[in-house]
C-alpha cells in the first residue's frame, strides 16, 4: 500500500515535470499531477470525506458541472468562422470520430486478454479518449465509469499533448507529397448574423436529433452565443476568463485526486493507455482518409492533411497540419483551414458522447 502511494506520488511528479518542462497541456496536467500527489499522502486525508479534494469532487465532478463550465468557456473562446466559411469541414470532424467507436470495439476485444475486463460503460468511457477533448472525456467518464476517471483524463490530456508526435507519421504514411502540397481556396467571409445564428442552430439540431448531448453541446453553444452576440461582452469575458480559469484549477485537482494507487496501478490502466493511443491513431487515419475521399469527389481541392485536424485537440492538431503542409510546400499555410475540422471535431466528439450516453448510460 505504501509503495503504491509512493509510486503514485512519482506519477504525479512525472505529470508536473511533463507539464512544466515539456509544456504537456500544463493548464490541466499540472493541477492533476499536484492532486495526485496530495491524494496519495498517507494520513493527510485530503480526498476522504471532509477533505477539500473530496468536496471539490462531489460538487464539481460527480455532478458533471465542472466539465460543463469548461465547455461554456471553450464555447466563448471558439471562433467557428473557419468551419462556417467552408462547411464541408464538418464532414472531416465527423470522420475522425471513428477513432472513438473503433476503440470501443477494441476495449471490448481486450476482454479476451486474461486479467483485462471492461464493461460496456467502461469501454465507452475509454473510447471517448479518441475524441481528443478533455472536458468531454471527463464528463462522460464521470457519468459512465467514475472509477476510471483519473486514468482516462490522464490518458486524454497526455495524448493531446503528444499530438505533434503521434499524428505526423500517420499523416505522411497515408498521403503523397503531391497531396500534402494541395493549396486550399480562400475561406469565405462569414457574416455576424450567421455567427450568431450558428450556436442556436446547433442547439436546435441537438434537441431534435440527439437530446442526450444537450448538456455538453448546450453549454458550448451558450458560450459561443455569449461571444458572438456582441451585446454581453461582460458575460463572455467572465466565461473565457474567471469561470474557465477557476474551474480548471479545481477540475484538475479533483481529477488528480482520483489517481489513487488502487484505482490507477492495475492492468486496466495499461489497457486504457494502450487504447487511448490506438484511438488517436485511428481517428487521425480516418480523418485523413475521409479527406482523401472528399478530394476525389469534390470539385474544390481538399488537402488530405486537414483530415487529421478533425480529431479536435484544439489547437494542437491544426498546428500540426499547418506544419506538415509547410514541410511539403513552404508557401502552403493551412492553419486557418485546419481550424475548420478542428472545431468541427469538438462538436463531433460532443455528439459522440451524447450517443454513448443515450445507448450505454
Amino acid at each position, binding site marked *: 500500500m505504501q509503495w503504491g502511494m509512493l509510486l503514485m506520488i512519482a506519477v504525479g511528479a512525472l505529470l508536473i515535470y511533463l507539464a512544466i518542462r515539456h509544456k504537456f497541456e500544463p493548464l490541466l496536467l499540472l493541477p492533476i499531477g499536484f492532486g495526485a500527489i496530495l491524494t496519495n499522502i498517507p494520513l493527510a486525508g485530503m480526498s476522504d470525506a471532509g477533505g477539500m479534494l473530496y468536496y471539490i469532487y462531489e460538487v464539481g465532478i460527480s455532478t458533471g458541472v465542472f466539465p460543463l463550465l469548461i465547455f461554456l468557456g471553450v464555447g466563448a473562446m471558439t471562433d467557428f468562422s473557419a468551419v462556417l466559411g467552408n*462547411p464541408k469541414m464538418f464532414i472531416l470532424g*465527423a470522420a475522425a470520430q471513428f477513432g472513438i467507436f473503433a476503440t470501443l470495439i477494441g476495449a*471490448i476485444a481486450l476482454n479476451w486478454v486474461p486479467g483485462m475486463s471492461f464493461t460496456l460503460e467502461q469501454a465507452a468511457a475509454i473510447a471517448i479518449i479518441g475524441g481528443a477533448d478533455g472536458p468531454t472525456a471527463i464528463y462522460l467518464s464521470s457519468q459512465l465509469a467514475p472509477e476510471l476517471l483519473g486514468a482516462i483524463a490522464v490518458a486524454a490530456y497526455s495524448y493531446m499533448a503528444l499530438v505533434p508526435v503521434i499524428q505526423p507519421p500517420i499523416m505522411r504514411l497515408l498521403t503523397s507529397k503531391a497531396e500534402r502540397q494541395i493549396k486550399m481556396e480562400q475561406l469565405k467571409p462569414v457574416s455576424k448574423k450567421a455567427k450568431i445564428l450558428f450556436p442556436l442552430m446547433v442547439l436546435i439540431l441537438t434537441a431534435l436529433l440527439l437530446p442526450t448531448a444537450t448538456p455538453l453541446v448546450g453549454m458550448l453553444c451558450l458560450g459561443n452565443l455569449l461571444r458572438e452576440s456582441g451585446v454581453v461582452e461582460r458575460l463572455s469575458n467572465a466565461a473565457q476568463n474567471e469561470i474557465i480559469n477557476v474551474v480548471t484549477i479545481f477540475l484538475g485537482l479533483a481529477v488528480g485526486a482520483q489517481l489513487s494507487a488502487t484505482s490507477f496501478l492495475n492492468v486496466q490502466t495499461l489497457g486504457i493507455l494502450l487504447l487511448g493511443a490506438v484511438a488517436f491513431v485511428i481517428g487521425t487515419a480516418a480523418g485523413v482518409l475521409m479527406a482523401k475521399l472528399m478530394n476525389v469527389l469534390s470539385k474544390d481541392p481538399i488537402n488530405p492533411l486537414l483530415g487529421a485536424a478533425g480529431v479536435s485537440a484544439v489547437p494542437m492538431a491544426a498546428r500540426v497540419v499547418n506544419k506538415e503542409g509547410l514541410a511539403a510546400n513552404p508557401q502552403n499555410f493551412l492553419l486557418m483551414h485546419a481550424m475548420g475540422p478542428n472545431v468541427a471535431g469538438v462538436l463531433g466528439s460532443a*455528439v459522440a458522447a451524447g450517443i454513448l450516453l443515450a445507448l450505454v448510460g
Partner: protein
Amino acid sequence: MTSMLLDAVTLMLIGMATVFCFLLVLTGCVSLLTRMAPEQASPAKQPQSAGNSPNSAHMAAIASAVAQYRKSRHSN
C-alpha cells in the same frame, strides 16, 4: 463476451451513422445559413473582429473616446 462485442459493433454502426447524419445535416444547414445571411460590405467587418477580442476593443474604445474628446475640445 461475444454478445458484448456484438453490442460494441452495433454501437459503432449506430454511432458513426448518427455522427455523420448530425454533421451532414449541420453542413447543409450552415450552407443555407451562410447563403441566407451573407457577409456584406467590408467596413462592417472591422468593428466585428474587434468585438471578438474584447479587451482590445475596450482599449480601442477608450483611445478613440480620448481622441474624440481632445478633438472636440480643440475645435471649441
